């Protein structure tokens, strides 16, 4: 039995030497111009996002759909090309790299996708799926076929799959097992960073627990940093060291997990947390329900982007965009009132 909180000791909540540093990341999409000369609109999917991530740390990005959390995650790997900003991995700037250099750099940076059904090639055997990244970089790794088979068996056992299943096709695995394959594939190059894009949201509760445990065990053993993109706040609370809350393309609050869940400062974070149904019939929900839907990122509100739905909005919120600034030790908030 591991002591409670053990995984938290791996990384302090304030990173010492950041593994990954993201500064002023922007991703704007221009919608195609209309047929009658209507100019294209600019959708600000990610607007001025900055954060850092330490070795062995889990930083979660949470928010509603369309808030830019997945775009941010994929931009870090340059699977989506950012519009501007800076992303540095171990001090090396990634945005200036050529496609070839970037490809090499991605050995350290892997991704696990949300849908374990869509992200595995149905025509490949499980062993080939997991081995493909190693084969892509064989020249660099100098590995022989023999050591590849050994490594595969080791990877399969690490993620809790029997090595005999290597010969099977993806459809022969259940959803949870497929997600394990995706994790094994991401692990195969010994990455320092894995972007987890909603890795458990497609899974049943009991299987979800298995995959969460696996991710935490692997972090413990190999010191991998996770950029964890998710919308399930209970899962985020369980797995994260620090959490960034995003709203309409911007980070509105960023702090360590315990502070965020016990003393959230931003009104949006407070409402988001109170919206989660508690599995306890004795707790009467005292929630403030947000009115309406999030505004369109193509036409974000003036000033603070949340002011149109914020129960505490004042005159200043309409006019001036609040800066993300620090309150107490490492607690970052973008709100005029806090």
């Amino acid at each position, binding site marked *: 039995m591991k002591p409670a909180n053990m995984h938290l000791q791996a990384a302090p909540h304030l990173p010492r030497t950041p593994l990954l540093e993201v500064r002023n990341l922007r991703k704007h999409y221009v919608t195609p111009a209309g047929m009658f000369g209507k100019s294209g609109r600019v959708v600000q999917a990610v607007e001025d996002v900055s954060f850092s991530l330490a070795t062995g740390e889990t930083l979660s990005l949470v928010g509603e759909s369309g808030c830019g959390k997945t775009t941010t995650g994929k931009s870090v790997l340059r699977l989506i090309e950012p519009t501007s900003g800076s992303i540095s991995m171990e001090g090396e700037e990634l945005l200036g790299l050529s496609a070839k250099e970037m490809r090499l750099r991605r050995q350290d940076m892997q991704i696990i996708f949300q849908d374990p059904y869509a992200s595995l090639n149905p025509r490949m055997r499980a062993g080939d799926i997991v081995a493909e990244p190693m084969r892509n970089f064989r020249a660099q790794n100098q590995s022989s076929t023999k050591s590849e088979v050994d490594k595969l068996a080791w990877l399969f056992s690490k993620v809790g799959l029997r090595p005999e299943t290597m010969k099977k096709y993806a459809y022969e695995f259940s959803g949870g097992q497929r997600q394990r394959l995706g994790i094994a594939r991401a692990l195969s190059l010994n990455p320092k960073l894995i972007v987890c894009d909603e890795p458990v949201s497609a899974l049943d509760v009991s299987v979800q627990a298995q995959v969460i445990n696996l991710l935490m065990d692997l972090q413990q053993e190999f010191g991998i940093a996770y950029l964890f993109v998710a919308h399930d706040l209970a899962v985020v609370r369980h797995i994260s060291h620090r959490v960034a809350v995003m709203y309409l393309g911007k980070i509105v609050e960023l702090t360590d997990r315990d502070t965020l869940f016990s003393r959230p400062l931003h009104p949006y974070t407070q409402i988001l947390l109170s919206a989660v149904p508690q*599995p306890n019939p004795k707790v009467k929900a005292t929630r403030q329900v947000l009115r309406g839907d999030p505004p369109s990122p193509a036409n974000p509100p003036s000033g603070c982007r949340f002011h149109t739905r914020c129960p505490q909005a004042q005159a200043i919120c309409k006019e001036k965009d609040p800066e993300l600034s620090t309150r107490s030790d490492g607690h970052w908030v973008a709100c005029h009132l806090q």
Partner: protein
Amino acid sequence: MISRVNSSTDMSGQLSHQVPLLEIDQLSIHFDTISGTVRSVNGVCYTLHAGETLGVVGESGCGKSVTALSIMRLIPMPPGRFAGGAIRYNGVDLLTLSEKEMRKIRGNRISMIFQDPMSSLNPVMTIGVQIAETIMLHQKLSKKEALLRATDMLRLVQIAEPERRVNEYPYQLSGGMRQRVMIALALACNPEVLIADEPTTALDVTIQAQIIELLKDLQEKLGMGVIMITHDLGVVAETCDRVVVMYAGRKVEEASTEDLFARPLHPYTRALMASMPAMNAAVEGRLLEIPGMVAASHELIRGCAFAGRCSYAVERCKQETPPLTEAGNVGHLVACFRWQDIAQQAAPAALVAPPVSPQYDFTGARS
């Protein structure tokens, strides 16, 4: 006083003095496939009373949706087949009705909300026409009157500017609004029974909160019986009066919501609760895993279907199927030989410990 039709009514405990609105009695639904007969639902019983919300909980493939679809008689036959039992609505067995008679009930007296609103709405019809179509099918109203009624329904589900929205197409609406349209559509004929199949699973947590509040509100206003099918125990705790837990096509536990969370008795219910990450600090480190997988439902399972994954299982569990027995409190049913031993042990920690701070003060001051 109308005499009760069968024993399952007695066993539902609470409210058993009333005639149930809907009664599922020993229902079995099998699917004949190339790889054998899949026993999706195996002798499931539950009842629903007017004004009550019944939660049906379980993981994918446990038969919760198949049971609900069979109430609406929406199971394609073949390959599906009713292998026994009855579904009584106000005393009438729906399984014996002709398709024509069933149409008068489906969407009119018993309605359903589906999980994915985008694939359940017609993309090339305005939402107003879709709602009006349902109303005109069941009530003698002109198209104009039906469209007015549709606007009223949109107002009822709190869609802003219903007069404008009524002429819009599904693609013009957000996910939360589409789900509201689905609810309006289901409630258009003022049904007595509303089946909500994972109504909030596809939605963001803030929108989920809106829809849950709306459903609770509407039920209070309209007094219908609601069957809430979900895998989210949080949604159950907030909305349901009573809960049925299903595993591998069988009901394994039934209790009032409060009783179930305070005193879960089936090992599966307990494992389900303990495997959920919690919003409070009670669960740290590793989550409880339920080892193994659900047995394939085309294999004929001997004994308790959960035995292979159960930490309490004894030899007897592999030989005999445990019957549903009343466990202490009125209306608390459990299908487990060892419930008395389990009852001695404390409930999973996540449920006992108080949440860290669910009560935020929205006036701006923080405690």
